[in-house]
């Protein structure tokens, strides 16, 4: 079957709403997040009217989306190292091999380069592969196929073929993940035309973005963070899409705009809380899709607040955060006075020892401190005291 032709998503050129928060919003009890909704029908949008009461983990949401897409279309196949092993990629692929059989769900040899090339071949033949990597670092073995082939095929062949490929890749953190198991290298892919990049930060988006990625006819890098895997949130039972190119305002505010990417979204929401104790009202935005990037929503916000702090889940230099800050500067130069800042990993290799690793990552407190300085336009030296309920997730190994 030539399924890849029958499930073409809505055209990208449609005007994007400035933000999906608002009309279709739903507030989850006790949380600052405001979830925007879209319905499952690929071509049109409608509201999910029933209130959502079901809580799922990120892992379960991801698994459910995969299950749904596999059931929906025979052309969806899932493979990668250890997708069918007892730990099932933290549970995200649990039960799929049993349900859909070993032809559609299979573990691979340790051959990232060849398996990526094979995934592209499958996509060219009309399958919709989801290739899973337990660490984003391992994508480095597959760069040739991803950058020189997957991203290029559609353009280089003048639109004659397309590559509906989803590459799932997880960013590790803490418990000595260290140099080669902790990298957030998604900006590499933002750099390359032809790739879409998504980094969902909530269970709701994990589900909706995976479905959107699978139905997209282009290569999509789906960025996961293993700390997010353990988070819980409201997830509708029905299928829905969180489409490319739309950011979400996750908390409203007027003094500064915080943009948090992937797991840094959680830290930005914590920072917002700390900032209220200093009388600062921060707006928080989750870009969700990094490519295509919804710069409109961020620009609207910064036009109101005049200050932008982007917190990346990777290094700053040439990173996603740098891209956002540059785009905002271009957009608002001459329109509004603004102050901007980027935060991200310290410009070093990730050390394993905890005491240095703690300094390597931004966290709610360091983000709040930087935000306050940005708002006040001076180095205040203020760092909020740690609130236990906002302390970073304690992660215990062995892995």
């Amino acid at each position: 079957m030539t399924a890849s032709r029958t499930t073409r998503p809505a055209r990208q050129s449609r005007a994007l709403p400035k933000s999906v928060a608002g009309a279709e919003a739903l507030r989850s009890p006790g949380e600052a997040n405001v979830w925007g909704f879209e319905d499952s029908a690929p071509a049109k949008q409608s509201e999910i009217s029933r209130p959502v009461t079901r809580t799922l983990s990120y892992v379960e949401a991801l698994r459910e989306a995969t299950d749904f897409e596999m059931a929906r279309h025979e052309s969806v196949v899932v493979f990668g190292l250890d997708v069918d092993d007892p730990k099932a990629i933290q549970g995200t692929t649990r039960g799929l091999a049993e349900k859909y059989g070993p032809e559609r769900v299979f573990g691979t040899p340790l051959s990232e380069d060849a398996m990526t090339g094979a995934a592209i071949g499958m996509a060219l033949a009309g399958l919709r592969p989801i290739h899973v990597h337990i660490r984003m670092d391992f994508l480095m073995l597959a760069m040739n196929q991803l950058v020189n082939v997957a991203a290029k095929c559609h353009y280089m062949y003048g639109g004659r073929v397309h590559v509906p490929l989803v590459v799932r890749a997880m960013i590790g953190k803490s418990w000595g993940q260290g140099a080669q198991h902790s990298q957030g290298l998604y900006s590499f892919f933002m750099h390359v035309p032809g790739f879409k990049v998504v980094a969902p930060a909530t269970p709701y988006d994990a589900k909706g973005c995976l479905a959107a990625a699978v139905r997209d006819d282009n290569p999509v890098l789906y960025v996961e963070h293993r700390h997010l895997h353990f988070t819980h949130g409201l997830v509708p039972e029905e299928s829905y899409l969180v489409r490319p190119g739309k950011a979400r305002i996750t908390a409203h505010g007027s003094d500064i705009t915080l943009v948090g990417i992937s797991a840094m979204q959680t830290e930005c929401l914590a920072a917002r809380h700390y900032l209220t104790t200093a009388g600062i009202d921060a707006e928080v935005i989750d870009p969700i899709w990094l490519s295509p990037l919804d710069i409109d929503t961020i620009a609207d916000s910064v036009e109101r607040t005049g200050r932008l702090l982007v917190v990346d889940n990777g290094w700053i230099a040439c990173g996603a955060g740098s891209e956002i800050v540059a785009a905002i500067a271009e957009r608002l130069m001459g329109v509004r006075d603004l102050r901007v800042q980027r935060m991200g990993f310290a410009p070093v290799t990730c050390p394993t020892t905890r005491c240095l690793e703690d300094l390597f990552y931004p966290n709610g407190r360091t983000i709040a401190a930087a935000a306050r300085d940005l708002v006040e336009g001076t180095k205040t030296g203020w760092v909020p005291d740690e609130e236990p309920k906002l302390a970073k997730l304690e992660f215990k190994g062995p892995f």
Partner: protein
Amino acid sequence: MHEQLYRSLYRIRRVEEHAARAYPSDKIKSPVHLSIGQEAVSVGVCAALEPNDVVFGTYRGHALYLAKGGDLKQMIAELYGKVTGCARGKGGSMHLIDPEAGVMGASAVVGTTIANAVGYAYALKLRREPAIVASFFGDGATEEGVFAESLNFAVLKQLPILFVCENNQYAIHTHQRQRQGRPDICARARALGMPAECIENNELLNLVERGKQVVGRIRSGLGPHFMEAMTYRWQEHVGPGADFHLGYRTEDEAQPWKDSDQVHRLADLIDPVRRTEIETEVEEEIAAAFDFAESSPFPSPAELHEHVFQEVCA
């Protein structure tokens, strides 16, 4: 010779058992990939190596590091994330290194050090040095493209390198049969143009003897050699415990390997009095290493920004 081998083998076993015992204290905040059950491969091959020879390994590298003469205190301190560790706490269990002992590091990305080992061997040959390189990796690593590419280059340039595939039959929880269409790794090495042999039984003395033969051959300039050493991992892929409850392998499968435990085999070959002496010395050394790690300081915050670049030399 048996005494020396026993000391090395027993020491590695006990170090890892101590690490496993310390693990629940959360002082080792690092993934540990234990070699328990596989020690004989490292000990056997390293017994054939000279101090100037060099090894490259993997994240499952405790045994190789110790067998090649890596500093024990620095290793434990590294596991504890202390500044006195072999990588100043920056590398952890997966990246042990001791250049002075010829341990040239270990990668957490499977297969990557095979090519690095080949390059090191090229440099040794270029400089006409008498040393050789031993490259250690698992059965899973042979599925990566870099394996075939590296072996080809080693043959092409007739490099002084021994490839040691520690075949424990599993990559995490997946058996070799489920990953390789033809699970005959030696055949692939031969096809690429080098002599290859499989050592089936994990027997230390056999490994030592074969190691000495092939290392002598390589040292005399006859080019690369491939050794596949069948062995078995007793503990979980990563972490201190057992994993038979996961169901991907059975205790029955493990039993023959445990029955032929090389630590016991070697122990039976030496004089009981000497054995007790050796064990006592090793236990003291290990206790001192853990004390050293415990009492060592963590790196200072300024360390975060150090070692990004080598200081420019004049």
